[in-house]
């Protein structure tokens, strides 16, 4: 049966929803946001990360605990993403580069691998039902210390992170600095 415009549009919407779910995972673990991590998985989902296998509550405890114990900072970067959808089931492969600033303050650990996900659409929502992580390589390298000044935006492991600020604004002090330097002083910025 030839695809209609409507079904093609639905496919694009599904692809976007699935990508958003997987990107949301990266954001949620990088912010240690338990509530947000839970939204990525179905309630009965299972996650296998190396030696860890467990359901969502155990996974959240494990992943946040691991990052807190080992890292002072981290980012999870999704690169290549492919996805096959068949009805209400999707298989996705998302390349992941995870970068960890370790607690010793001297080492950055970099790993490259893939998230393999089976997602299911239930009640119109795509979430992960099964995730298995495959690794290809890792390396350690020297951290370069950078002094984040008072003017820099700081990442945090809670909802004080600037990414949660709905309408992004410059902090008052930086706004004052701009105006003092002859900036436009537009309040929307």
């Amino acid at each position, binding site marked *: 049966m030839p695809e209609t415009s409507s079904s093609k549009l639905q496919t694009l919407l599904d692809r976007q929803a699935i990508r958003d779910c997987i990107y949301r995972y990266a954001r949620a673990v990088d912010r240690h946001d338990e509530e947000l991590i839970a939204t990525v998985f179905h309630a009965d989902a299972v996650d296998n990360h190396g030696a860890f296998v467990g359901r969502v509550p155990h996974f959240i405890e494990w992943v946040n605990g691991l990052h807190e114990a080992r890292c002072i900072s981290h980012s999870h970067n999704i690169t290549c993403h492919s996805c096959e959808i068949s009805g209400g089931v999707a298989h996705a492969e998302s390349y992941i580069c995870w970068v960890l600033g370790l607690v010793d303050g001297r080492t950055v650990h970099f790993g490259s691998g893939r998230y*393999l996900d089976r997602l299911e659409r239930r009640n119109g929502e795509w979430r992960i039902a099964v995730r298995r992580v495959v690794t*290809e390589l890792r390396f350690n390298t020297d951290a370069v210390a950078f002094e984040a000044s008072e003017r820099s935006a700081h990442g945090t492991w809670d909802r004080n992170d600037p990414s949660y600020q709905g309408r992004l604004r410059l902090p008052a002090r930086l706004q004052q600095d701009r105006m003092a330097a002859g900036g436009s002083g537009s309040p929307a910025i």
Partner: protein
Amino acid sequence: MTESNESELQLLLDRQDILDCVSRCCRGIDRHDAALIASAFHPDAVVNDGDFVGDAPEFVEWVNKSNAEINLAHTHNITCHFAEIDGDIAYAESYQMQICRRNDAATIVVTGGRMIDRFERRNGEWKVALRRVISDWRFQADGSVYNLPDGYVHGTWDKSDLSYQRPLQLPANLLQELEAKGKPRSD
């Protein structure tokens, strides 16, 4: 749907098809899947990657052979991707970080660059007609930490790679472990 909606929908579909094609090629290279790599190119496509210049079938053979000669594992990671479409021709630029674990099991080489592609849509399918690969930077690092057991499934260069499994599911031993944790079984 109005005519303008239809053309907007088609643009989104074309952009997705082009990005999927670039991603498919990376996946094919990383799995040493000749058919998958070939599926990203028109049969008469030409590829220039470093010193290599040749047609698509030659590229498929060369890329798998040269990776097998010098690497134990590799990932081709696309970050920024752009495509400008003009009728049945598109020009795409895809930023790439190629990360390779050399066969000494210690050296990691990371190369940042860009794939510049001329795509052509023939018979409704977008594929690469001409590719030139640019390298912009490179660094080396010590990857020997990977030789310590990490408990993870590792990638393979054949169809036994977990990414081919349909449906994706936990193996029996992990399901048993889950059960032992006292939770209801699924899958």
